């Protein structure tokens, strides 16, 4: 998903990144020396031990993420992990890499700013259902609509865990919490429906107990250019245990996968899901809990990153690729 081109096309960041500053060593000008790179390992990207409760579904997400990074052997300095607030939003502290732990609900715009200003980076965003669908709900819609290039992993546990059991935007009706002692009465958000209608261009659903499937979803989201969202059912063992039982094969539940079309002209293929079909995705999203898992929707609509880049290129060409100084001077000449 990373784009090697810098916004103003001035200099190749990767070679700059590989330069070591001799100034650090003694004030002489910086020289560009290729510093050897070792293969990215799980050890290199592991940071603090997670503060999550034992048995929390989020551990599996972290493990899958490490594995994908290792498999893809990304440049360590180009991995950026970001989050807002919540249990799952502690994620960046557990990844050794550039990152930021931001404020509640605003991680999508934070990540959008990074993705737009630095398309050479791999922007990974983590959060929970409260952060994504409640306090940050508006940003989710607009990030999706604008199709900013990033991967957003939402660990959905149907409850507010960090604040110790309040109703969340995805809590089912009847769920008894500290803020709904007689059971939740508000209609929960349907994440897949919301994302389809908001215009996200990669929408998938997975489950914390299905590590292999989760890794596949992360990789596909990573390979997609655009606003890629994965909703992962991730159990809160402390405040909403056993909520996903029916979906857990290990607990006797079902884990029904979306059968995607293979475009092989067979009669079976007729019944399979077309991931580019919004209405079909919407229908899948209507299935009763636990629903289905896999890719609901994917589209190659141009990203905001690409559209802004195109505008920059056309505008720069019109100015004859003038320097910053020439451009501003020209503007001032018109104001005389």
């Amino acid at each position: 998903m990373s784009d090697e081109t810098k916004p103003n096309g001035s200099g190749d960041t990767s070679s700059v990144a590989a330069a070591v500053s001799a100034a650090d060593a003694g004030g002489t000008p910086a020289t560009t020396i290729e510093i050897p790179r070792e293969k990215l390992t799980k050890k290199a990207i592991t940071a603090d031990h997670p503060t999550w409760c034992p048995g929390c579904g989020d551990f599996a997400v972290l493990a899958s993420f490490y594995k994908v990074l290792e498999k893809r052997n990304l440049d360590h300095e180009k991995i950026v992990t970001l989050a807002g607030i919540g249990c799952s939003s502690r994620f960046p502290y557990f990844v050794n890499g550039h990152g930021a732990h931001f404020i509640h609900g605003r991680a999508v715009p934070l990540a959008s700013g990074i993705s737009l200003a630095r398309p050479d980076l791999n922007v990974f965003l983590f959060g929970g259902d409260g952060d994504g669908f409640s306090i940050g709900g508006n940003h989710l819609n607009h990030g999706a609509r604008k199709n900013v290039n990033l991967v957003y992993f939402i660990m959905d546990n149907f409850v507010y865990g960090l604040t110790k059991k309040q109703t969340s935007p995805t809590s089912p009706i009847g769920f008894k919490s500290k803020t709904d002692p007689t059971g939740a009465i508000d209609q929960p958000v349907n994440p897949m429906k919301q994302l389809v209608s908001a215009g996200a261009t990669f929408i998938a659903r997975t489950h914390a107990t299905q590590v292999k499937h989760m890794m596949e979803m992360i990789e596909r989201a990573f390979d997609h250019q655009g606003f890629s969202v994965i909703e992962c059912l991730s159990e809160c063992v402390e405040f909403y245990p056993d909520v996903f039982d029916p979906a857990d094969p290990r607990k006797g539940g079902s884990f029904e996968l979306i059968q995607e079309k293979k475009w092989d002209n067979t009669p079976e293929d007729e019944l399979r899901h077309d991931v580019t079909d919004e209405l079909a995705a919407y229908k899948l999203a209507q299935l009763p809990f636990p629903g289905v898992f896999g890719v609901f929707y994917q589209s190659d609509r141009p990203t905001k990153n690409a559209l802004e880049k195109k505008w920059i290129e056309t505008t720069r060409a019109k100015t004859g690729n003038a320097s910053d100084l020439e451009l501003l001077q020209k503007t001032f000449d018109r104001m005389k």
Partner: protein
Amino acid sequence: MGEPNNPDITAVQQSAAANVQVPDRADLRPENINDAVIRLAGNSQDGIQTAGAFLARLAGRSAQDVMTYMTIPATISGGPSIFQVRIGSGEVLSAGDEADFLVAFYQHSYHDHIGFLREGGVLLYDSDNVEPDLDDKRFVYVGIPITGLTVEALGGTAKDKGKNIFVLGLIAKIFHLDQEKLVALMKEKFGGKDESIVNTAIMAFTAGYAYPVGNLLTKLYQFEKIDKPGGRAQITMDGNQALAYGLLAAGVRFGAGYPITPWSSVMEVLRRELPKYGGIFVQAEDELASVSIAIGMSYSGWLAVTGSAGPGISLKTEAIGWASMAEIPLIICNVQRGGPSTGLPTNVEQSDLHQAIFGSHGDSPRVVLAAATVEDCFYIAIEAARIARKYSTPVFILSDTSLATRIEAFDEPDLAKIMVDPKPDLTARQTHKPYPLDQITQHVPPGARILDGKYPLMSGLEHDEMGHPTGSPKMHMAMTAKRRNKLRKLADDIPTPEIYGDEQGDTLLVGWGSTYGPIHDAVKRAREHGEKIGALHLRHIHPLPNGLEKIWPKFKRIVVVEMNDAGVYGYGQLATILRARYCESKIESVTKTDGLTFRVKEILENVFKGKTYARNIPRDGAAVEHHGTAPENVKHLKEVVPQGVG
């Protein structure tokens, strides 16, 4: 419609002058002047802003100093509106208390603004629409059927559209303005459009210019030619443009915002201009997103800007607190308007100072700067960027409605010396601590390799030197001190401002932001009357520069002049801070909240109670002095000046 050859005129003041009988005085020798205030009063759809802007641009091109002042109704279209231009051959500090020359398009324009015409001043009115009280012998009356003549000149299809340009022609004639330069400006302005628009404009202008206005006036005028030392060309723009171009010069290439009056035009310029420089300005879904996007851009290594007016800044404060905690450089512009809440969206106030300094949860130090003039809007942006980068901190730039909408001419900046190369520093580091306790944080953006393999995390949780969360009380104390101490370091780094006027004496006026002009004009006028008075203007408000404590003892009185409320304890927002900081009981406060810029006379009357250094002309519509808030002291805004605020 009045007959053009039989103009409705009563030149009362000059009736005794012998040359009144001369039938055609078009060949009058113009009188040299060095300062004139021209107020155009009409409705906003008449294009008086356009005509006024031409005058301002022309003055700039002719190396004249110029300052404008305008009011715009908050209604979507229409409503009474004024544009005032002050052109001077010397230094123009304020837009002028009183007009020398008032152009009234309608009866309401006459009625509402005649009070602002100085005694002996000229009222030029559209005799098709206005019937002035000719018995009031204080003014010179010149009635011209502006509407009729414009329709006649343009052939009727355009109706009365173009009377602004007709009036521009009249003014050009009266003030001996450079006709060729004006026509060139009009061609530039309308050139991109349909050619017929340029032609219509020039026809209207020529008709106005050709009108035998010399028959109606006893004098024509001409600005003294001046030779500017330094010889840099003048450029003319408003404060929001200056702010936006200042950001460009400062190397700001990314930003995000949400539309709100009067900030919007800054983001419009940036959205249009940044792609030329390889940058992006994002129009976000809301204020919270816009500040968060800008923080993301800054985090990524490109110092970014966000901005708004007061209500929008309120929404951004949580994220600004994060930038302070995580020590991320960021520029936040607040183009202030009257508040609180939706308040007076198109009026001026300086009531967001405390919000800028303190507006957050927790102790979250940030830097606050305020632009003094339109020109300063340009330079303050460069200073803000310098500080944000060097101290890795959020920096507020305070501007306001009056700076945002006012056009000034100023010396063209020497861009070759000023322009900053903004690229992110992605040099690999052997090791990096994002929050060293013994140094000022230097932000290292993602993409920079850290060779010892320990990558930094920017955190809103209280953190240790590596950015990892800690609940240690000792660490919180140390980190709180670290974040505050860099502002103390900054205070050592900024010069003590110079005093204008007397460097010691009886009275020191202290100001910040757009009151610069009227305060300095007030000092000038009071000194002419023998007062020992000086002015101190603060651009760096938080932290305050060192050395102010040495200035206070040099004056008997210190009066802080600002456009906000005296508050519960009787002091304006800056006065409150200065009193708290210096425990200086000499510090007094002059404040006002009528939503209008300070008039020089108003400042003098408030500072020297009982004495006035301005000619005291009884009039309707004089500005209100807010000495108390008892009902009898509070006048409706419309009594002060019609604003058309919806």
